[in-house]
């Protein structure tokens, strides 16, 4: 019997496969399709302090092997998430869930994190620093090492659960930002969030998504995500969650060889709602095929 268990900041996952934030809702759409407890866990939709409708539609543009989304962090706000979504989720998930947190100021991040930190169901806080920093002139927190570190530091000072910072790939040097976050106390690093991308409609001659640009993800971004995981593994000691373009058990293993302790599947869920289940089920036989007995052994194996 192969061992698929991995450790993520002190919590044991049955397997490293998680669903990525924003592509798995709060889990119930998927719980109708399969028992979501077979997953390592999942990260729920990015939560902000206030409810947000998000960006105008169209919010979706198709790409080769991927899509662009400009959802704009639509969510009911942290209080509704705690009062309504988490109790509903409890009925279908008996595991710790990862709470994905968005924010437009350091205060918003800390406030939302603090509220979610008090929820039993929440195992980890995943702080998405890809949102624009409204006080810092709109530049994303995640594109500036100091700003990212500041968020991590502020959040860490107010919560007890592990804080995983989710980084944007739209940067010159991902290692600088990851190192700054580790230094600031982050317990883990998720990468990557979406790449800034765009499509134009030839008929209307206008950008396809109303917001012009959006976040590009899917299998197309896998080589960039893998490279960043590999680079960051060499410069931090905290666990990395590998995200970006994962579709198969092979992709999971490749990400782990690059340095990921766990992975998240995003866009693939939208196209094949059973993909997480299929990947979890394929993992043992794929491990055997490549001579892997214990998944933990291969983390960073390509270095």
């Amino acid at each position: 019997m192969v061992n698929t268990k991995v450790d993520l900041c002190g919590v044991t996952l049955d397997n490293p496969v998680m669903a990525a934030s924003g592509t798995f809702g709060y889990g119930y759409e998927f719980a109708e399709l399969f028992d979501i407890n077979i997953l390592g866990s999942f990260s729920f939709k990015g939560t902000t302090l206030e409810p947000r409708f998000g960006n105008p539609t169209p919010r979706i543009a198709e790409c080769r092997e991927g899509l662009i989304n400009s959802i704009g962090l639509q969510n009911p706000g942290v209080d509704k998430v705690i009062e309504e979504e988490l109790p509903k989720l409890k009925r279908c998930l008996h595991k710790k869930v990862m709470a994905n947190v968005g924010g437009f100021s350091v205060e918003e991040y800390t406030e939302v994190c603090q509220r979610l930190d008090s929820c039993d169901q929440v195992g980890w806080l995943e702080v998405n620093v890809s949102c624009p920093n409204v006080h810092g002139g709109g530049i994303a927190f995640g594109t500036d090492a100091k700003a990212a570190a500041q968020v991590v530091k502020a959040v860490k000072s107010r919560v007890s659960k592990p804080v995983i910072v989710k980084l944007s790939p739209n940067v010159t040097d991902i290692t600088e930002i990851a190192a700054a976050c580790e230094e600031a106390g982050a317990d883990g690093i998720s990468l990557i969030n979406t790449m800034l991308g765009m499509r134009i409609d030839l008929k209307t001659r206008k950008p396809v998504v109303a917001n012009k640009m959006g976040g590009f993800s899917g299998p197309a971004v896998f080589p960039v995500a893998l490279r960043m995981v590999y680079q960051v593994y060499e410069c931090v000691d905290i666990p990395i969650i590998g995200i970006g373009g994962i579709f198969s058990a092979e992709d999971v293993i490749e990400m782990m060889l690059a340095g990921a302790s766990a992975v998240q599947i995003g866009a693939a869920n939208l196209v094949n709602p059973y993909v997480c289940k299929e990947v979890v089920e394929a993992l043992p036989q794929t491990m055997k095929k490549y001579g892997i007995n214990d998944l933990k052994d291969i983390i960073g194996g390509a270095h």
Partner: protein
Amino acid sequence: MKKSDFKILSNKKIADKTYEMKLFCSGEHGISNGGQFVNIKLDGFFLRRPISVCDWTDSNITIIYKTVGAGTEKMSKMEAGQMLDILTPLGNGFNIEDENIGEKPVLIGGGAGVPPMYGLCRLLISKGVKPSVILGFNSQKDSFYIEEFKAMGADVYVTSADGSIGTEGFVTDALKTIEYTYFFACGPEAMLKAIDYTADKKTDGQLSFEERMGCGFGACMGCSCETKYGSKRICKEGPVLKRGEIIW
């Protein structure tokens, strides 16, 4: 919702750039309301294609689609016997239990919005309601299913923008000439808006919307729409919205 492999039974051109595809599903497809849709995976395309169900039996469904881009072009070249990976059933569909429907509802379909009216019409008729049906096309060459609607026993009115078939004008021109207790509409957003503007303010109705979709089953928030009763997902709480909740 579930993912099934459907077999293409037939795929034929029924009007300019317009194809009718009949599909067979060995399991349950779950479609029960007119206006529900399916989401079709095509090789070589990342996202699925949402297409309304035109009609269905226990094991078959019929869809009608226009070729507007590479995906629908590819579909139009598929042949009987080929398999398609499809998510179904999706969306709420038209609610025919609404108490305000009355004895003479009107079904209004424009262009690629005509197909969902067919299954809806069949359900209404089987409930003993004989609706009026207004079908709007750009031109005769784009028109389809007129005889099929008549064969069901509906009162059919046809309009075309260039007058080459039916009355020259828009569906709203026909709407102004008839009596109706309720309306069901599907078509381009401009048409839906014109209907809402034209229809008597006291008459209730249901309108089916389109939006670019990421998933089609409620997971991504790609298709959200603000309504008077909060945000709704076109793919999940829609595509059919009630007249009263729409914010234009």
